[in-house]
């Protein structure tokens, strides 16, 4: 399979699909996080270094905390994503799709040391490139996945048109394609919609242009159960 979807069956016997995220978005997320951490350190050092030795000690503690526990705290308490991951719509979950807990999160972040070797995450990058689900060593050992999570799914709305009963039997795939076409109508330009309609003359009844498009949406209206 070329698709990078991992299907997980929950205890309710429903399949949940996880979409693992690849190297590029993860690298970008890391860069964002690195920038945030650097910013915190620079700002804190401006204040703390005035305090002399005492401030230096606090600064080292802060640096230590940011280096090891910054991702862990965000992953466990911030619903699975550090600010960088959030910016790119990524989330860390267990391999079975459940939110990540303290143990796995700590493991995957401690193993960053191993992934970082010999320089700049070389081993981690190789591991991500070779793994089917884009996991670095820390993910493998911690049993975690970095996935896309899109929280903006809206209930679909199909434009109200007079429903048209199909004049020939339609198989399941065709029905599904028709409804998907009508659902996405709002996202596509009229020219593109008409072009798509002209690709299925047997459904559009060779009606070209706006009529073909309207006929397809009318069919979709019929298929989802609208009747005049």
């Amino acid at each position, binding site marked *: 399979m070329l698709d990078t979807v991992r299907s997980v069956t929950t205890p309710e016997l429903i399949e949940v699909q996880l979409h693992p995220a690849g190297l590029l978005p993860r690298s970008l997320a890391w860069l964002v996080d690195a920038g945030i951490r650097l910013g915190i350190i620079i700002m804190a050092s401006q204040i703390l270094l005035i305090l002399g030795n005492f401030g230096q*000690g606090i600064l080292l503690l802060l640096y230590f905390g940011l280096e090891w526990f910054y991702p862990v705290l965000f992953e466990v308490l911030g619903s699975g994503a550090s600010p960088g991951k959030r910016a790119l719509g990524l989330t860390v979950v267990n391999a079975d799709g459940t939110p990540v807990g303290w143990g796995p999160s700590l*493991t995957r972040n401690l193993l960053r040391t191993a992934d970082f070797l010999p320089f700049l995450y070389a081993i981690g990058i190789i591991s991500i490139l070779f793994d089917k689900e884009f996991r670095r060593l820390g993910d*493998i050992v911690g049993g975690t996945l970095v996935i896309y999570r899109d929280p903006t799914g809206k209930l*679909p709305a199909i434009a109200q048109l007079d429903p048209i009963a199909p004049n020939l039997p339609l198989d399941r795939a065709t029905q*599904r394609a028709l409804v998907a076409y009508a659902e996405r109508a709002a996202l596509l330009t009229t020219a593109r919609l008409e072009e798509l309609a002209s690709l299925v003359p047997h459904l559009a009844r060779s009606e070209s242009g706006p009529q073909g498009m309207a006929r397809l949406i009318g069919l979709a209206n019929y298929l989802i*159960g609208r009747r005049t």
Partner: protein
Amino acid sequence: MKQELFEQLHNAEWKLFETWLATSPTRKKRKKDAPPPPPSFPAAELPHRYRMLCQHLALARDRDYSLALVAYLHRLVQAGHDRLYGVPAGFAMRALRYAAGGFAADVRANRWWVLAATLLLFGPALLMMVAIRYQPDLAYLVVSPEQVAHFEAMYNHTGDTIVAREASTDVAMFGFYIFNNVSISFRCFAGGITAGLMSAFALIFNGLLFGVVESRLALAGLGHNFYSFVIGHAGFELGAITLSGAAGLRLGMAVVVPGRRTRREALRETASSLIGMVCGLAAMLVIAALIEAFWSPLRLDYTLKLIVGSILCLMPIAYFIFAGRDHGA
């Protein structure tokens, strides 16, 4: 049933679930001025409503309802799944229970690994201590002459003041010890994934270094200063380094000999049984850093420091032998 009717029948339930997800916070909000709006249904109804959604998703998939509807229900199910199977509460309680005995039980369960790490750390140390007393130049195999001079200067103080340095320096050193030692131990554990080689190297190198420092200072006649400084935190610090080495070695063994599991599965299981111990040893290093920064530099009477130091040194050993015998019973 057609999709349109299906949506009309259940739309209200889905919307209710959606608003519940948006309004009911995962944990207590910090803001005090604005009380959160009451959730659209009591939390006790979550499992029931979530299973209902699962059923709707299954129906939508089976009846070939549109992709967007399936995606919408899938998102709701996923969010409900996250809420239902989220992080278990009571983190502080679990940590406390672990400290009260689980940690010691874990260490005893891994005693052969701890023994192996102990040999790798203290074997080279003892070897160096004996060897350098006969041939002091052997020290330069491990460290440079400048470093030896630096060590000797560090412990070469005369006992005229009680405190070795200002209080603010203590805090600076505390930060440094935490940063340095805990990072080393974390790396020692994570490095175990290289078939245990990096962990073994860290143990042997630190053992050799310790042996060199001890024997060169003893030869330079600074033994008293050295022992009175290190004995207080030695138990916690060396114990924690040994444990991190043991954890690393065991992780490495999961790579080399995974047994009747895939390597990934072996690594995952081993790591999840070790992560508690790694947290425990990090806590030990924090205690060690406290002692090292605030007690060890005090220049008190040599016998007093030895007595208190020995007690501190024996504390972790006693803990590992006696604590948590009934843990998990």
